[in-house]
């Protein structure tokens, strides 16, 4: 979209900004073209030390784009054509990538978890300092200090993955502030937070600003920030005026009752606690009902029950549609047109698209749409399926006021068609403006969402083998496993397998039962190897009926089986004593693998922690969408779910990559707060392994 008017010049309000030194950031003539569209044209911006700049503008005017240019994400990590000059303290920095700009600048985005990649909060804060090459001796004190300043001291010894969204955002903010940046860029940091967390985060931001930090803020919930004490010095308006006021909502005309249900003892999962003890739900056609309440009070749980999802589905929920928070989880087809026609009357969906002016989106792949467009398409698709009742989980989360207004207009439209809308929302203003009924779930004792046990296991780090260097263990395991491939001796190898297996419970501090369970597949495999080899190898027959078993076959089978068992035993010893994060740290410090690979692996570990929940959400979303589909269709839908998981994971990965660069990961140089060193234990391991290997080799030579 091109703009013919130059943007409104900056209007100064409030306190006098400091003016003596060179500005922290000054940008001239910023022009951005992305995907062939002109987004920004000739923007100038100057921020002096301690100044707070607010960027305003309607949807699509390029607020986030401008921040991304300041941060260096455009054009260094994301594609765009950028013109203009950016200077920091008089020096031009336009050509410097985000990692270099991180020395004086930090950034906080919408998604709290986007930049967090360590296991423990303390390590996360320390990482910011390690990447800025702080002296390890000073790191501990600064971590305690910044935690106290931002009020997250109680969170210091908790796992990042267990924190709520609001807590994660506070940690991300503390991590951004730890390195004492001169400028902080804030891209809608409150938009995904519930009101309580938003207040906590706003207070930290306001206090940092009053301590002298310069800020460039894009935030449509600016009033929350102002209420916490933030004073805006300058406003930059990218649009041609103030955002349009929300259209007044016409009166609703409630019709007959479409649902009268009593929900009792609703749980999140079959083995979980009751989240909603009892709730009366009476829905009339042509009304909007809002579910409000803090995180954990059961809003999403009620919606899921309403939609007929396990474990406590509401009876008669075949006629309920549900639009999930992440609308793209529900897309089953490759075009918007196909999406609104899926298991629906083809014409009603397309008619709705045309009526709302979205007809030009029809041929596009739904995953390429913006968040607001995706929500509306998902809503239309659910409506086109003819559902009388439509549930929505946080319909305006993460949207700016323009997109938010579009979604609420659509909700009113559907309401006037005679449907019953039920939505859960944090947005008090939305609830009071649109809802005919507000159900407040706060009186219930909230049950916070706990992290589900996922595929990742925790390893006891204090066992004897656990304290050895993971890189060393890997090297030994690889060398011995490969060496074992060179032999088919039976007795010495079987002996080694037995010895190692017996040592595992002691060396790894695990119960023998656990070891056996892990080892069972190897035993079964070995048995199969013996059988297959005995029966399929030529030679002198041992048994002729009912199948031919040969001597050579049996001998070979036993040898191969022994080898499998030995390699398996070493494998079990390795696996039970080596955990993910410790392994990666060792790769970086002891195997000297470059830092970007190691952080890639850490990112993978973090991602793996969240994939369990993501997969369940996607499966639920697609189940609700495809209710009534046949067997074959369900099979295809599983594949579509896998695809959606890839899309979600790849997006997360890109966000994490940008965030890590903005924290300083790029030059490759860093310090280590906790240095890993080789110890005497490692020497013992090497000596013992070498001795055992030598004995085995000798035994193979001596014994036939």
């Amino acid at each position, binding site marked *: 979209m091109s703009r013919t008017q130059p943007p409104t010049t900056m209007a100064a309000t409030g306190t006098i900004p400091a003016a003596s030194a060179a500005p922290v950031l000054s940008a001239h003539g910023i022009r951005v073209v992305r995907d062939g569209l002109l987004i920004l044209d000739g923007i100038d911006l100057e921020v002096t030390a301690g100044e707070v700049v607010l960027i305003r503008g309607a949807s699509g005017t390029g607020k986030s784009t401008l921040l991304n240019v300041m941060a260096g994400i455009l054009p260094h990590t994301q594609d765009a054509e950028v013109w*203009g000059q950016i200077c920091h303290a008089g020096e031009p920095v336009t050509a410097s990538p985000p990692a270099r700009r991180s020395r004086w600048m930090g950034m906080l985005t919408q998604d709290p978890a986007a930049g967090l990649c360590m296991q423990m909060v303390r390590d996360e804060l320390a990482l910011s300092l390690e990447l800025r090459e702080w002296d390890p001796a000073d790191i501990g004190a600064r971590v305690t200090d910044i935690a106290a300043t931002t009020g997250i001291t109680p969170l210091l010894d908790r796992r990042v993955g267990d924190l709520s969204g609001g807590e994660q955002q506070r940690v991300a903010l503390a991590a951004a502030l730890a390195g004492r940046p001169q400028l902080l860029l804030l891209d809608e940091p409150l938009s995904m937070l519930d009101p309580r967390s938003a207040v906590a985060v706003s207070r930290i931001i306001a206090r940092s600003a009053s301590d002298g930090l310069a800020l460039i803020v894009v935030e449509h919930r600016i009033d929350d920030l102002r209420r916490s004490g933030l004073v805006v010095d300058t406003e930059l308006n990218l649009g041609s005026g103030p955002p349009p006021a929300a259209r007044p909502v016409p009166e609703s005309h409630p019709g007959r009752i479409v649902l009268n249900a009593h929900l009792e003892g609703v749980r999140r999962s079959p083995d979980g606690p009751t989240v909603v003890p009892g709730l009366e739900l009476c829905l009339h056609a042509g009304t909007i009902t809002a579910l409000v309440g803090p995180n954990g009070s059961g809003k999403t749980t009620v919606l899921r029950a309403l939609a007929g999802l396990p474990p406590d589905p509401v009876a008669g929920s075949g006629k309920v549609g549900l639009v999930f928070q992440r609308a793209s989880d529900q897309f089953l087809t490759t075009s918007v047109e196909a999406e609104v026609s899926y298991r629906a009357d083809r014409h009603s969906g397309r008619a709705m698209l045309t009526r709302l002016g979205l007809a030009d989106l029809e041929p596009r792949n739904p995953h390429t749409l913006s968040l607001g467009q995706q929500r509306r398409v998902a809503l239309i698709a659910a409506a086109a399926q003819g559902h009388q009742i439509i549930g929505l989980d946080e319909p305006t989360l993460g949207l700016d006021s323009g997109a938010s207004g579009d979604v609420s207009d659509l909700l009113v439209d559907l309401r006037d068609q005679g449907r019953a809308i039920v939505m859960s929302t944090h947005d008090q203003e939305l609830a009071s403006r649109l809802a005919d009924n507000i159900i407040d779930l706060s009186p219930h004792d909230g049950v916070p969402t706990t992290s589900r046990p996922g595929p990742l296991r925790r390893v006891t780090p204090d066992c004897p083998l656990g304290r050895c260097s993971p890189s060393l263990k890997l090297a030994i395991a*690889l060398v011995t496993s490969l060496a074992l491939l060179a032999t088919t001796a039976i007795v010495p190898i079987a002996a080694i397998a037995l010895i190692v297996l017996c040592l595992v419970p002691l060396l790894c501090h695990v119960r023998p039962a656990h070891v056996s369970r892990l080892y069972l597949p190897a035993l079964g495999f070995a048995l199969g190897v013996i059988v297959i080899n005995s029966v399929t*190898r030529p030679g002198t027959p041992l048994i002729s009926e009912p199948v031919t078993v040969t001597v050579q076959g049996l001998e070979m089978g036993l040898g*191969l089986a022994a080898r499998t068992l030995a390699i398996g035993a070493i494998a*079990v010893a390795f*696996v039970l004593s080596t955990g993910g994060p410790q392994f990666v740290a060792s790769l970086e410090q002891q195997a000297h693998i470059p830092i970007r690979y190691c952080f890639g*692996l850490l990112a*993978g570990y973090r991602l793996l922690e969240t994939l369990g929940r993501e997969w369940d959400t996607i499966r639920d979303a697609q189940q609700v969408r495809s209710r009534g589909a046949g067997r074959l269709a369900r099979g295809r839908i599983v594949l579509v779910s896998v695809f959606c998981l890839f899309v979600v*994971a790849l997006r997360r*990965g890109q966000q994490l990559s940008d965030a890590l660069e903005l924290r300083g990961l790029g030059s490759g140089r860093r310090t280590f707060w906790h240095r890993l060193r080789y110890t005497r234990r490692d020497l013992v391991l090497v000596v013992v392994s070498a001795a055992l290997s030598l004995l085995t080799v000798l035994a193979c030579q001596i014994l036939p």
Partner: protein
Amino acid sequence: MNPVSNEDDRTPQPVARAGGLGLKEIIAVVVVAVVFGFIFWVMDQAWTSLSVAMGPLGDLAQNVLIGVWFLAAPVAVFIVRRPGAGILAELVASVVEVVFLGNPVGPILFVVGLVQGIGSEAAFAVTGYRRYGLPIFLASGAGASLLSFAFSTLRFGWWGQSLFGVRLVVQMCSGILLGGVAAWLLCRALARSGVLRDLPAGRQ
């Protein structure tokens, strides 16, 4: 506030790293490996009794299912379009399997991964990382099948068994179908979804 900008003012595009893997590319490869690792774990959980029963049958069933393991490398190469992406994907998948998920097959999977990665990437390397049609994916699946078959022969002692020929045929079919066709379909769908826009696959 000049509405017209001159070309001299343009921020130079970052020089594309010739042959190197930057953080963004590495994380994209890791994401692919992690998601596949997770899917396999899900399948494993769904069929726990089968996996124990698979023990004795495992020696045979290996050749049928092995194609699924070949998916990570070609998808990674498609997304990142740089040498080494396939090998990295398989190595990371091994780390995910062995260290993160605790697969008791153990460190030897690193060697398996390396071999599979080299086999998968060969087809892409030979064409200079410029071609990404179905034939190349099929060739990649075949390459991975052949190389991993050779290593497995050494590892499990398949040479000399009367089944040898059957195993080879089954593994090749599995590798080409799963590692080739399935990988190609996934890559096409990902490209159309727009999620690869800021990665090398989206720029070409």
